């Protein structure tokens, strides 16, 4: 297979993160990139160049997928049919070589917190092969009722405003809520109660346990001018530092982005509804209006494979078209 000029050659230096390679990986994000963390080294592959052998390497003991920002109820350019694109995302998940065992939805399930919007998403997700879906709320899911409806529907057994943790095959998952009690002029916020809970939750774990934290608004400062960050996330990152492998999965910014800080990898997923501009590349973070034929290339899903024993996590972003 002929390699494109921007294609990344597998296996960077084994002495840490290859900055050049990492930036290339970021540039590929959204068009289909596979990034594999292995022993702290980030390896990146272009999806189009993936061979069966590569796919088999990524095919690990634990496989799950992330979807985000379905914004059910949104009906304006560039996407007047968010039902169709969410269905396309589910079809994409169902067609993955290793079907995900469960799904994470990182918020903005609905556009206006309306019951019928949540109902529609629930109905569409029933067609996913993966039956379990773990949610965290976006700010669009808690409008007007301080998240009461969201809690009743999606987080009955959670703590506080909807945070919780669970374990799957030795990987510890922590679902956080950073869209409640937002202050005028502020960013996303976790709050003292939740921070105290996270500390208690992580405290008994050995530092060799892989951790996956998921929340709606990015837990790193992507672009505070647009509210793309969480004001008290630094405390969580401090708690994550002792772990050999920690991954933070977010939504909110409707585009894929990745960053590595020590042993913590940050990743944002694409939306299934509409794209948003790159940070600072527009007057406001409003929906990006793109030609119809380009829309699905800017929407997508994220597939994550954890390979037990090799301590490697493969995060694959796939666009819907």
């Amino acid at each position, binding site marked *: 297979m002929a390699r494109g000029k921007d294609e990344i050659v597998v296996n960077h230096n084994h002495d840490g993160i290859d900055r050049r390679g990492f930036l290339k990986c970021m540039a590929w994000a959204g068009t289909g990139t596979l990034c594999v963390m292995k022993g702290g080294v980030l390896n990146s592959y272009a999806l189009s160049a993936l061979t069966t052998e590569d796919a088999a390497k990524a095919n690990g003991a634990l496989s799950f997928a992330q979807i985000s920002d379905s914004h059910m109820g949104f009906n304006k350019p560039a996407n007047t049919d968010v039902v169709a694109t969410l269905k396309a995302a589910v079809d994409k998940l169902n067609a993955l070589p290793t079907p995900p065992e469960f799904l994470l939805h990182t918020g903005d399930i609905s*556009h206006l917190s309306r019951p019928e919007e949540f109902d529609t998403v629930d109905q569409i997700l029933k067609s996913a092969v993966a039956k379990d879906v773990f949610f965290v709320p976006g700010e669009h899911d808690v409008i007007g009722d301080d998240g009461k409806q969201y809690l009743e529907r999606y987080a009955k057994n959670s703590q506080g405003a909807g945070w919780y943790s669970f374990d799957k095959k030795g990987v510890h998952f922590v679902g956080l809520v950073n869209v409640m009690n937002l202050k005028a002029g502020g960013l996303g916020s976790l709050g003292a109660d939740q921070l105290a809970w996270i500390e208690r939750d992580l405290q008994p774990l050995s530092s060799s346990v892989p951790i996956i934290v998921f929340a709606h608004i990015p837990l790193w400062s992507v672009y505070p001018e647009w509210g793309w960050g969480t004001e008290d996330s630094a405390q969580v990152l401090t708690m994550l530092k002792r772990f050999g492998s920690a991954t933070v999965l977010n939504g909110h910014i409707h585009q894929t982005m990745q960053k590595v800080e020590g042993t913590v990898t940050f990743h944002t997923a694409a939306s299934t509804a509409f794209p948003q501009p790159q940070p600072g590349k527009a007057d406001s973070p*409003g929906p990006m209006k793109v030609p119809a034929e380009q829309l699905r290339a800017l929407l997508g899903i994220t597939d994550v494979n954890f390979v037990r024993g090799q301590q490697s996590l493969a995060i694959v972003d796939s666009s819907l078209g």
Partner: protein
Amino acid sequence: MRLKMYWCRFALPVGVGLALFVTAGREAQPLPQQPSSAPVDVKIDNFTYSPVTVTVATGTTVKWTNRDDIPHTVVSEDKSTFKSKALDTDDSFSYTFTKPGTYTYFCSIHPKMTAKVVVQ
């Protein structure tokens, strides 16, 4: 003769209006309260309240209209004085300010959006 009579009719109201204006300006006092004053409009567009500061007399109703293609809210900083529902495109929310003061408000969905109403 006809011309002169018309002139007189006009002169009286203009003179009264001018006198009121001068009095208010000299004593630096707010204009008399007008409970039936027209609503003041604030537009929401491109993730911005416009105008970002409005100054109104006590008793004035402020009406916010969302012209953006994304929903916004209008929530007082204390989150209790006033609080709109989600305003979809072209939805409006009104609140009548009955007490003087400075009211900072924000969008609870996009809290970076802030603005204020000054009530005199």
